[in-house]
Structure formats: structure tokens, C-alpha cells
């Protein structure tokens, strides 16, 4: 009997521990999520501002967490700013999807139970493809900051993108290389099990051929083989490539730069928007990225007043320089506000009504944000049209290349 008591006591203690942890989690999360919102709701109801429930999913844990956190952080800043202004206010809830379609749908359903009215969709492409189907069926208006595959918006009239689609980036990269006359002998290193990389690679090859650029070396890597690039670098070097195009995210790229320097190979490097963030990578020697060209929608060192204020706020609160994911997310929230204000939506409207009012706005309005001015959306495809920025890294900051 004594033993049983002991066991019981242990069990009880364990349950209490769990409870304490759970409570921690709760207060922690509401500190992060709802802080902005509870404040917003108060001022909102006092001033009679309509408050909309804004939801989104993204990887807050796991390998892709850096993107999800950037989007979540920037969305928080945008919501805080908006809730201090007139017009519509937001209550933000952001759920973790671990960059997995299955968990993203679960996260979406949790947001649906919460009563989400408008959405910033999902951060990464495959989860966004899965959640956008749900959003389409439930008529929740969505605009994704960073899910750039074409399938995200295809066939879903109420899903829009703030970022460029992957194929467009490949085409724009080839055009830019030709326009700036960077080189005619190009090598490509890409990640063949990654949607983002494969999508850009495909259209880059097509457009490069059209622009008269010769692709002399075309090599790949995959998850799990992304630490040693000596073979790919040697191949590019042996075939005399003067420019290496890197359609990938910045972690593998940082290793490629270091290993190429060790091999004594110094071509012109050209990246796409996934390269953005390399300068803030922990432990990265920024001199390695000197003279790297990249296409990006956002320049954290831009001198525009809104840009400066956003970067300052972000640094103050989260300690790093915001990347394009953050900027796109910030723009998404503001674009939603602009459309909701213009459409005169109220929170008591049904999701379907809000959705159709928003559709009318998004297909007709012009939006000025951090990631480009005069952005418009194509109603049929949900794609954004704005001018990409070509920058080159000089002395550890971005400088416009043309």
C-alpha cells in the first residue's frame, strides 16, 4: 500500500509538472501572439474599430523555422502598428506547421476552430498548397507572403501571393545576367529535391538559352548531401564557368562560397531571393559574399523612411536584420488592411462575403509596400506584379546593381 501511495504521489507530481509547463506555454504564447491583440482589441472596441481575426501557419520549429519566425515576427509588428491606427484592426494567431503539409492542414483547422476570417496562408510552398485548398473550400481570403510555387494559387480564386512565383525568378535571373552583361558561360548548382530550387532551375535554363547564355555545368545536391560541394565546384571550375547561378537558400550557398574560395575559384555569383539573409547568418564571414548578385524584393539597407522604421523596429524587438520573408509578411498584413478598409468590411460579415469583397479590391487596387511600389495582382492567377530589385553585396550591405 505504501508503494502504491508513492507511485501515486509520483504520478501526481508529474501531472502537476506538466500542468505548470502547459501553463507556461500558454502565457508565453499569449505574450507573443495575443499581446498585440489584446491591446488591439481594447482600443478597437473603445474606438469602435472593427477587429478581424487574422490567421497564418508557418514553420516555427524545425529546419525551416527561420522563415516561419521571420514571417511571424514581421506580422506581429505590422499588426501592432495597424492596431494603433484608424480603420480595421487585427487579432493575429500564427500556428506552427513544421514545414509539413499534414501538420499545416491540422494547423489550419485549429485556426478555423478559432474563427479565422482572413489569412496570410502558409510560409512555405508545399504546406501552402495544402492549406490553400482548404481556404478555397472554406472561402477564407488568403494572401501568402512567401509560398512561391505556382500550384499555391492555381485554380483557387481567393488565394494571392505577395512574392514572385519560382518560374518568374528563373526567367528574371537569366534576363538580368544578360542585361548586366555579367557572363556568357554559366554554371548552375541546384538542389534537386527542393520545389523552390527545381522550379527556378527549370525556367532559368529555358530563358538562358533564349538569351544566348551557355550553361556549361549543371550539377545538383540534395537533402543530406548538402555539406560538401567540392565536386560541383570542381566541375564548374573545370568547364570554365565565369558565373555560377545558385537557385537555393542561403545556408548551402554560404558553404559553397567558403569551399570555392578554398579551391581558389572566384566566379561571379548570382542568387535569387533565397540568398537574402546570408549576411545575417550566424558565424558567416561576410567577406565571402562580397560581389554576390541577387534578385530580392527587399533591401534591408534601403533608405526609404518606412523601410528604415521597419528595420529599426524589427532589430529592436527580435535582434536581427529582417529578411525578405519578413518584409513580404509585413506587406501582406498592410495589403489586407488596405483592402478591408477600402471594401468597408465588418467583422460580423460571413467569411464568404468578406472573401468576395476582398477579391474585388485585390484585383483592382494598387499597393505600395516595402517590397515594391505599385504592386498589382492578377485576379485569374493570384500572382503579384511588381519590379524586382537587383542588388550586389558590397562591404557587407546591399547596393543596387543597376
Amino acid at each position: 500500500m505504501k508503494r502504491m501511495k508513492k507511485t501515486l504521489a509520483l504520478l501526481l507530481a508529474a501531472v502537476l509538472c506538466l500542468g505548470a509547463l502547459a501553463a507556461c506555454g500558454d502565457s508565453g504564447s499569449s505574450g507573443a501572439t495575443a499581446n498585440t491583440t489584446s491591446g488591439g482589441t481594447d482600443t478597437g472596441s473603445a474606438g469602435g474599430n472593427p477587429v478581424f481575426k487574422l490567421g497564418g501557419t508557418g514553420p516555427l520549429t524545425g529546419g525551416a523555422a527561420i522563415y516561419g519566425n521571420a514571417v511571424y515576427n514581421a506580422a506581429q509588428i505590422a499588426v501592432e502598428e495597424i492596431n494603433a491606427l484608424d480603420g480595421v484592426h487585427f487579432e493575429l494567431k500564427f500556428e506552427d506547421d513544421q514545414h509539413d503539409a499534414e501538420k499545416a492542414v491540422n494547423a489550419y483547422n485549429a485556426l478555423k476552430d478559432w474563427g479565422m476570417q482572413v489569412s496570410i496562408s502558409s510560409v512555405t510552398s508545399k504546406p501552402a498548397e495544402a492549406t490553400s485548398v482548404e481556404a478555397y473550400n472554406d472561402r477564407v481570403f488568403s494572401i501568402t507572403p512567401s509560398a512561391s510555387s505556382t500550384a499555391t494559387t492555381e485554380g483557387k480564386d481567393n488565394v494571392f501571393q505577395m512574392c514572385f512565383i519560382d518560374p518568374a525568378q528563373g526567367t528574371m535571373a537569366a534576363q538580368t545576367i544578360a542585361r548586366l552583361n555579367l557572363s556568357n558561360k554559366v554554371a548552375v548548382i541546384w538542389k534537386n529535391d527542393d520545389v523552390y530550387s527545381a522550379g527556378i532551375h527549370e525556367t532559368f535554363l529555358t530563358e538562358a538559352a533564349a538569351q544566348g547564355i551557355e550553361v556549361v555545368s549543371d550539377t545538383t545536391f540534395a537533402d543530406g548531401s548538402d555539406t560538401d560541394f567540392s565536386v560541383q565546384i570542381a566541375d564548374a571550375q573545370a568547364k570554365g564557368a565565369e558565373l555560377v547561378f545558385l537557385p537555393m537558400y542561403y545556408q548551402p550557398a554560404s558553404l559553397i562560397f567558403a569551399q570555392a574560395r578554398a579551391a581558389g575559384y572566384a566566379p561571379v555569383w548570382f542568387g535569387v531571393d533565397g540568398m537574402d539573409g546570408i549576411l545575417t547568418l550566424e558565424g558567416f564571414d561576410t567577406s565571402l559574399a562580397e560581389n554576390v548578385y541577387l534578385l530580392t524584393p527587399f533591401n534591408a539597407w534601403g533608405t526609404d523612411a518606412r523601410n528604415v522604421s521597419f528595420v529599426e523596429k524589427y532589430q529592436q524587438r527580435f535582434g536581427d536584420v529582417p529578411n525578405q520573408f519578413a518584409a513580404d509578411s509585413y506587406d501582406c498584413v498592410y495589403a489586407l488592411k488596405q483592402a478591408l478598409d477600402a471594401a468597408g468590411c465588418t467583422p460580423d460579415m460571413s467569411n464568404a462575403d468578406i472573401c468576395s469583397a476582398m477579391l474585388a479590391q485585390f484585383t483592382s487596387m494598387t499597393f505600395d509596400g516595402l517590397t515594391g511600389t505599385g504592386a498589382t495582382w492578377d485576379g485569374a492567377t493570384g500572382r503579384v506584379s511588381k519590379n524586382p530589385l537587383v542588388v550586389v553585396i558590397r562591404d557587407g550591405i546591399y547596393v543596387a546593381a543597376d
Partner: protein
Amino acid sequence: MEKLKNMNKTTRRNFLTYAFVIAAYIILQLWAGAGMKSSLRGMLVSICAYVVMAVSLNLTVGVLGELSLGHAGFMSVGAFTGVTAAVALQNAVASAPLRLAIAMVVGAIFAAIIGFLIGIPVLRLNGDYLAIVTLAFGEIIKTIFNNLYVGLDAKGFHISLLEDRTQLLEGGKLIIAGPMGIGGIQKIASFTGGAILVLLCLVVIFNLVNSRAGRAIMALRDNRIAAESVGISVTKYKMMAFVTSAAMAGAAGALFALNYSTIVANKFDFNTSILVLVFVVLGGLGNMFGSIVAAAALTILPEALRGSDKYRMLIYAVVLILVMLGTNSPRVRGFLEKLLPRRGGKKEGV
């Protein structure tokens, strides 16, 4: 009721398991119609898929006694072939449940074929070696599907590896697009379909285990040399369990994939194999009912913990450890038996 009492112990346990699944299905189905939360409703089909994965792996690990770390590979084969079949038959077969059934059968057949091919070299190995080879197998399957392009047009299927050389005719459709996996899947998987699959798998497993073949398989598990010496064919019976298990995983894969609009090969990686193994170990080796409960509970748990946000995965891990310790401790078992005095007396010695 009197009949139930007179049955032999295994038969009674099996019938109670069937009854549990059917009751759970009826309750959940009624609840789904009457205000169940969307987060739970959205998980019903994937719970069924994971339950089938767990019971099928339990056949390999618990009944056959071989540790397999590549079970998600079979799920992957079933998912990709099953969805391909469903897409190809989109116009030919109008009825969605029928298409789902065909997809699951196709997935099961392909997974069984792959299971057989893998089984030839793999089942010559034992213990740790087998575990490592199945682990490698899972990675091979993942890599193949990450580089496979399958298109369908008026002329039939076009298949290419490494890059898209399918050159489809006008109106053709690229079904499997390498690293992009399969997109734009019509979600035809249903909870009813899933529940039927779970029941079918249970019928197959229980009948296999209680048959002559099943006793041979368990004899191999308990003492291979003794079993061989009385004339039991090692390869035949190992293969029988392994292929059956692979086929069920294939059907589960098809069910799982048809519940989402998109599926990528990276989903079925080592982590998924381990997750399923956790279901099996937690539910108890050879205990099908335990596998069902563990798979369902551990699928729901991370979602139920969403409220606690940042500590969610930590709590999940802590709960796993506690449950593992708890179920293995004789004290807790004794305590549970006291709570359930009805079963206490009849319980066989563990």
C-alpha cells in the same frame, strides 16, 4: 454474452478489438456530423492511415520479431502509385469511393511487389543488420521518388528519371513531378474508407496470426534454429509476414496521400518510420489493440497540445517518456490491475 465468455482468450480479445474499432467509428462518425471541431475532423483519415501503419509494422516487429526501420518506404510506394492510379482513373471511374478503393488496392499491390523484392536480400539478415538495411531501403525509396517524373497523356504513361523528359502531348498531365511530388490531388479519402481499411487489416492480421502460418512465424521469432530444425521454411514464412505488412502499409499510404491535396517524397522519411515504430513499441509488441490506441493517441496529442504553443513538442516528448516508463513499470501495471479488478483475476501472466 455467455458465448463470449466461453470463447478462447485470443478469439475474445480479437472480437473485442473489432468491436472497439466499429464502436469508435460509429461514435466519431456521429460526432463529426454534429459539431466536432474541424481540427479533430481533419485528422480522422490520417489517424486511420497511421493505425494501419502501426498494426502492419506490428506484424513485422511484434509477430515476426524483425526490427524494420523503413516502413515509411512502403507507405511512400503505396502513396505515389495509389495517387497515380486515382488520377489516371479520374474520368474513367466516376465514383469517388470506388476510386479510393482501387487506389488502395493498387498501392497495396505495388508495395507488396517492392516488399517481395526487398525481402529477398533483406530477410537473409537478422536483428541489427536487418534494421540497418531497411533503414537504407527507406532512403532509397525517398530518393527514387524525389527524382521520378511520371506523366500521362493520350498515349499512356511516360516515365523518366532525374529530369523531366516525358514530353507530354497536348492535354497531358505530369502526375509525379520529381521533388515537387504530386500536387492538385482530389481529396477522395474518407473516414469510412479508412475505418474499413483498418478493419480489413485487423481481419487479415488476426487470421494470419492464428493460422498454421502464423504459428510458424512466431516460432521463427522465438527460436529460429529450433523452428528450422522442425522443418519450418525460414524464407517462406518471413517473406509471408513481411510482404503482408508491406501491402498494408501501401494501402495506408494511398489513403493518407488522398487525404491531402499535395504529397512529397520527403514526407515519408526516416522520421515517419520511427514515428510508426514508436506507436508499435508504445502499444506493445504483438498487441494490435495497443497499436491502434497508441497510433490514434499520439496523432491527436501534438494537435491537442497546440494551446501550449512553444512547449508543445517538449511536452509531447515528456509524455512519451512517461508513458514508456509507466507501461513498463510493474508497479503501474499492478495499480491498473487493481483499478480494473474485473480483468485482474483473468489476466494471464506477462
